């Protein structure tokens, strides 16, 4: 339910995302030496079903990593299958990428984006959260029936690297209790 957030809280969250994503985009841009464009962040609360639908795309790779600290949750990074080679080339990988090199590249990209997004975000809120190492994620092997949550707050933004076909989405998903912590921190910021 998006009514979960007041208008001011939504505005603040959106702006925080904007800023941290800007930092992530800058990190990526520096790494690949090419301009990165950003979408407007999307903030929604989703049910397990909606979440599972998001994981239905066969044209992308998924990675996941969890974070722990004042707030907890998982960051999913969704990376397009197209354009991986050209990104790899920008990042000094040997192309065409073989299986191992591709996984390494995907995990590195995911880690940079997720790391920058999350740290930018938590720093501004004076919270801390430490990211674990990312792993590739194959949702088709996953059974959605076993989830332990009813809804999660999801913050999503899309990165596109100009000069290659590559694009990627970072999705930060918060655990239920973390949402409360987040709201408190937001309110502090808004006082």
């Amino acid at each position, binding site marked *: 339910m998006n009514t979960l957030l007041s208008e001011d809280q939504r505005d603040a969250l959106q702006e925080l995302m904007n800023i941290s994503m800007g930092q992530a985009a800058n990190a990526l841009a520096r790494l690949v030496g090419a301009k990165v464009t950003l979408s407007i962040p999307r903030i929604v609360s989703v049910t397990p079903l909606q979440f599972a639908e998001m994981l239905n795309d066969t044209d992308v790779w998924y990675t996941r990593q969890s974070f722990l600290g004042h707030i907890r949750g998982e960051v999913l990074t969704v990376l397009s299958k197209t354009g991986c080679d050209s990104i790899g080339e920008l990042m000094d990988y040997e192309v065409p990428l073989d299986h191992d090199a591709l996984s390494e590249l995907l*995990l590195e990209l995911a*880690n*940079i984006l997720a790391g920058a997004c999350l740290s930018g975000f938590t720093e501004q809120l004076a919270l801390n959260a430490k990211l674990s*190492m990312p792993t590739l994620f194959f949702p088709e092997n996953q059974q959605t029936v076993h989830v332990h949550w009813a809804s999660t707050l999801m913050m999503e933004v899309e990165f596109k690297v100009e000069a290659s076909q590559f694009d990627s989405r970072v999705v930060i998903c918060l655990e239920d209790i973390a949402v409360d912590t987040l709201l408190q921190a937001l309110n502090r910021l808004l006082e």
Partner: protein
Amino acid sequence: MQNTSLLSKLVSRLPLGICIVDQSYKILFWNDFFTDRLGILQQDMSLPNLLELFPHEARFLKKKINSVFVLNNASFSYWEHRPHVFQFRSSRPITGEETLMFQNIEFFPLDVEAQQVNTVCMVVQDVTELASYYQAQKKLSGQLEQEHAELMKLNSKLEAAQNQLLQSEKMAAIGQLAAGVAHEINNPVGFVSSNLQSLQDYNTKLFKLVQFYQKLFAKINHPTYQTLEQDMLKRQQFAFISTDLPELLHESIEGLERVAAIVKNLKAFSHVDSSEWQYANIIDGLENTLKIAANQIKYKAEIHRNYQPNLPELYCQPMQLNQVFLNLLVNAAQAIEDKGDIYIDVAATESAITIAIKDTGVGIEKKHLQKIFEPFFTTKPVGTGTGLGLSLSYSILQKHKASLSVKSEPGKGSCFTITLPILATEQLSESPVSKN
């Protein structure tokens, strides 16, 4: 004081490698994990430069560490991609198969001042055990997968074989039934036919007799009796009967002849050993089959034959080939919605006989073309088609080393072409029969 010494003891005993470097990759600190494995005594040596110490992976280390300095963000290295960044000996030198240590490494900014990273820490985790377990599992699952694939292949073969068996059983049963029925019908047809012959005979005689009496009567020339006779003839419809009776008899005899022909065909079709290999004429087979299928075809399509004369006889299983022709002809007729044509072309070269059966029916959709030879694929309503016709035909033709191809244009019609190679007998006979 107490605490720092505890802490340093802990760090030296940790089952993790810890190494801290500055911007020039100079090592500022490392724990025993490194020194033990390098065979250096901690206090022995001034701290070296990381890249010089590990020239092997210097390029990779440099890239990783740089990215942490620049981005102020942790970075990881996985054993799956880079198993031995630090070339340490395996942690299981005696019992393990591995010679080098598998490791996961985390690189993270340790000391950060105003967004500026001053030092980077590496934490190395020995995951040899995990890696070799994982690899063993992977090998195992690879084997399983392979076995599974083989089983699946076997399974589908079995299924195909079973279908074939089922179908040939079905055909055999129908054959036996037909043979039985044919036999049963043959007897009554026989005596009815001979009785009819006699009836026809008697009938002619009786008419002769009546004509004789009529002539005799005319000679008597008695008006009263003649009126009486005319009345009687009229009332008994003699004039009509005398023309109709021979016709009835004639029709009945003809009908019975047709019954006899059908019975004969049935017998031919359900030849006792339908899989017998012998020399046979393809045209005869086609014609026999056409007779069998006449009822399903004649209201739907006109048959146009184009047979090359003087075809060689072919060593084959004629009854099985008839089965194929029947399937194709019935399919062709069923594809025709109202009225249409079926063209049968037979031609031979030195090495093969080709039989093309072309119809002007509804045709086959492109997406179905791949599937029509699969057992149980049918587009016909339940009860009409079993979807076995083509798959059975296909397997029969395989035994003849023949091919079956199809061309179709939806809305226009289809053409099925059989190419039967003319082979020597030994090339065709199946696996040698054991002499017991």
